[in-house]
């Protein structure tokens, strides 16, 4: 689970880092590029507007130049007569003005006096008079209409009383080398001309005349910027980008502002693209992350937790047949195989240890047999020698009654020794063989009375048997429990060499019974309490060291326990706890059972009685 969390955090953190870097990159690089693209686009559009206007300037200059070469015009300015005026009017008619796309044509003599003026309403397509103030304007500004050389020419924007006007002023010489006057053609900057330019450039834009102080003030900022660069771009919002350019009049001051509005399509597409990119990155990242997590979960975490669980489940009882192998070739599969190999090695060692234990146990048993069987053997040896001696004497004279009795006593002592040796061998077998129980109803109280009867408690020992009134029958192996309690009671009796009190109590607690055997004998030394249930441990001259070991094994097999309280020179209390209903399914394993004992606290007998 923790590994899962770590992987999840790792994936999330790395994903977030990549996301931040990519988002930053897309915002700076991508949006930067888009902005540049947008700027160059609007610059191009603006310059197209400006060049459309410049084309108009060129056109009016061309038209004026054409008219200035007309001989009829030359003649007319020179002569002022009606005939030449009639000739002139033929070529300077409404159609010609309309074709030249001019509003006004004016002719001036060398002194700057007006000779002729004609107007044409380009929208209404008919002639109209030239406004008085315009004529006066030109007469006042004679510098515009008085040319010093036949080649000089003035074309450009000009603020006039009729508004901002495109004018072209050229000397009339008809190619004869001398100038007779000046022709001035004007074109008002009206909505019509803007339409024309728009049509020509396929653009939508505004032309803003800067006529008075107010206009100047209003566009001060843009005009200031335009002093440094020919085209200025402004973006007020996400929708529109505006390009500005300016055109100067003949005096060099800015008079016409080009304002080209363009939808920020590229910018919007760019933003959209970046957003889609981010969104798709999030979606793809989340789905890939989940896929990776699922894959990691399947490939790593699930096999790992399975392996870990299986390894955790291994204990001494299951190690025999267990295998944790996971099929495959990856590291986890290899790990599982390695663990299997390790288990094999462990099993080998376990088997070896078992062998060693068996050998040690055989050695200990041999030692025990060596000692314990040799004492009775010694007795048998000497008794038989003694009997032999007596029998030898019998050959000399027939035995008396007392001598016969003596011989019988001696032979019965040999039988006793044989019985003792038999007990040693039985105990040994009981220890080495497994404990199998023969279950029946057992009345423990009755059993205790029978045992006390059979062990023949000496006179010097007082006995008390105290069982609760409702002490139940239990479900157990009668013969084996007889052995257990015989052993405990015999031990108790043997510990009281100089007399004392033997007490056996029985009581019930829930679904268990407790039977205690209490003596006031010599007690068990502290250092021996730990070893009292060990096989072959004994403090008695004729002990095999097997009695208590067998007791413990029988009680363990019943699912019970033996408790011990003892104090040297005060006495001992062995308590056997047994379940009333024997659990038939309870597994008998020696490893599960341990001896509980309490270190004695003197005096203990008031407690135990």
């Amino acid at each position: 689970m923790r590994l899962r969390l770590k992987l999840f955090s790792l994936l999330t953190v790395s994903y977030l880092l990549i996301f931040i870097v990519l988002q930053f990159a897309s915002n700076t690089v991508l949006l930067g590029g888009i902005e540049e693209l947008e700027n160059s686009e609007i610059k191009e559009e603006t310059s197209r507007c400006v060049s459309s206007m410049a084309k108009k300037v060129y056109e009016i200059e061309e038209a004026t130049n054409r008219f200035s070469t007309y001989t009829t015009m030359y003649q007319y300015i020179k002569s002022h007569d009606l005939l030449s005026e009639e000739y002139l009017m033929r070529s300077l008619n409404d159609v010609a003005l309309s074709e030249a796309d001019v509003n006004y044509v004016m002719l001036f003599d060398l002194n700057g006096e007006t000779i002729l003026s004609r107007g044409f309403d380009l929208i209404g397509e008919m002639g109209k008079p030239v406004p008085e103030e315009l004529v006066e304007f030109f007469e006042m500004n004679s510098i515009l209409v008085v040319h010093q050389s036949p080649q000089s020419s003035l074309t450009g924007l000009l603020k006039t009383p009729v508004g901002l006007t495109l004018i072209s002023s050229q000397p009339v010489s008809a190619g004869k080398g001398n100038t007779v006057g000046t022709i001035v053609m004007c074109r008002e900057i009206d909505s019509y001309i803007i339409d024309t330019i728009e049509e020509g450039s396929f653009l939508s834009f505004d032309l803003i005349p800067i006529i008075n102080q107010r206009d100047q003030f209003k566009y001060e900022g843009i005009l200031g910027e335009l002093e440094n660069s020919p085209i200025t771009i402004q973006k007020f919002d996400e929708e529109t980008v505006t390009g500005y350019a300016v055109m100067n009049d003949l005096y060099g001051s800015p008079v016409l502002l080009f304002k080209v509005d363009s939808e920020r399509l590229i910018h919007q597409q760019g933003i959209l693209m970046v957003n889609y990119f981010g969104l798709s990155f999030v979606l793809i990242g989340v789905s890939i992350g989940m896929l990776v997590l699922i894959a990691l979960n399947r490939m790593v975490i699930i096999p790992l937790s399975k392996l870990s669980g299986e390894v955790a489940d291994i204990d001494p009882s299951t190690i025999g047949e267990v295998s944790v192998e996971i099929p495959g070739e990856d590291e986890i599969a290899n790990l599982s195989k390695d663990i299997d190999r390790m288990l094999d090695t462990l099993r080998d060692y376990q088997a070896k240890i078992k062998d060693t234990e068996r050998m040690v146990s055989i050695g200990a048993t041999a030692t025990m047999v060596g000692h314990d069987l040799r004492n009775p053997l010694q007795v048998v040896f000497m008794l038989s020698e003694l009997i032999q001696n007596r029998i030898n004497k019998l050959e000399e004279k027939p035995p008396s009654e007392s001598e016969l009795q003596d011989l019988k006593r001696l032979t019965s002592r040999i039988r006793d020794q044989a019985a003792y040796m038999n007990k040693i061998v039985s105990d040994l077998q009981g220890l080495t063989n497994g404990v199998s129980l023969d279950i029946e109803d057992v009345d423990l109280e009755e059993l205790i009375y029978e045992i006390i009867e059979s062990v023949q408690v000496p006179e010097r020992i007082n006995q008390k048997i105290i069982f609760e009134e409702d002490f139940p029958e239990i479900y157990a192996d009668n013969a084996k429990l007889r052995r257990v309690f015989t052993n405990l009671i015999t031990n108790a009796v043997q510990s009281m060499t100089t007399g004392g009190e033997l007490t056996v109590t029985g009581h019930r607690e829930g679904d268990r019974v407790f039977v205690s055997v209490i003596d006031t004998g010599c007690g068990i030394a502290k250092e021996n309490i730990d070893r009292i249930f060990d096989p072959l441990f004994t403090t008695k001259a004729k002990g095999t060291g097997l009695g208590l070991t067998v007791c413990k094994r029988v009680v363990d097999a019943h699912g019970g326990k033996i408790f011990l309280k003892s104090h040297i020179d005060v006495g001992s209390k062995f308590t056997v706890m047994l379940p009333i209903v024997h659990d038939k399914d309870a597994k008998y394993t020696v490893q599960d059972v341990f001896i509980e004992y309490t270190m004695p606290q003197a005096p203990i007998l008031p407690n135990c009685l």
Partner: protein
Amino acid sequence: MAPHILIVDDDEEILELFKLLLEDAGYVIDTAICGKEAIEKATKNDYYLALLDFVLPDIKGTEIALTLYKEKRINNILFITGYSYIFDFIDPQMKNKCKVLLKPVSGEDLLKSVKEALESVDLYGAQELVRTI
């Protein structure tokens, strides 16, 4: 006066039978059932020889032997035991003062060993093992 011998064994029956055998042979016998009693008796009385079991409830036979030897009570010991590895427990300085008989030992062998032990103190090395049967 017949030589006094102390027999120490935790098996009463063995004590009784050894005593019977040796008294029949004319020795004066004292018995002790544990190490404590053995040392008490050896301190009080003079013995020519001690027959010691190895495994006793309180003190090991070899330790009794060493104690008696150091207190110059007895330096003539005969171990009678079922443990063949008793040699590992015999103190090196005791090796020449004692002999080991392994149980079960026949009455004849026992008498012979007792006799030899009484005749010649320090004659037997502990390494010399007389084993019957």
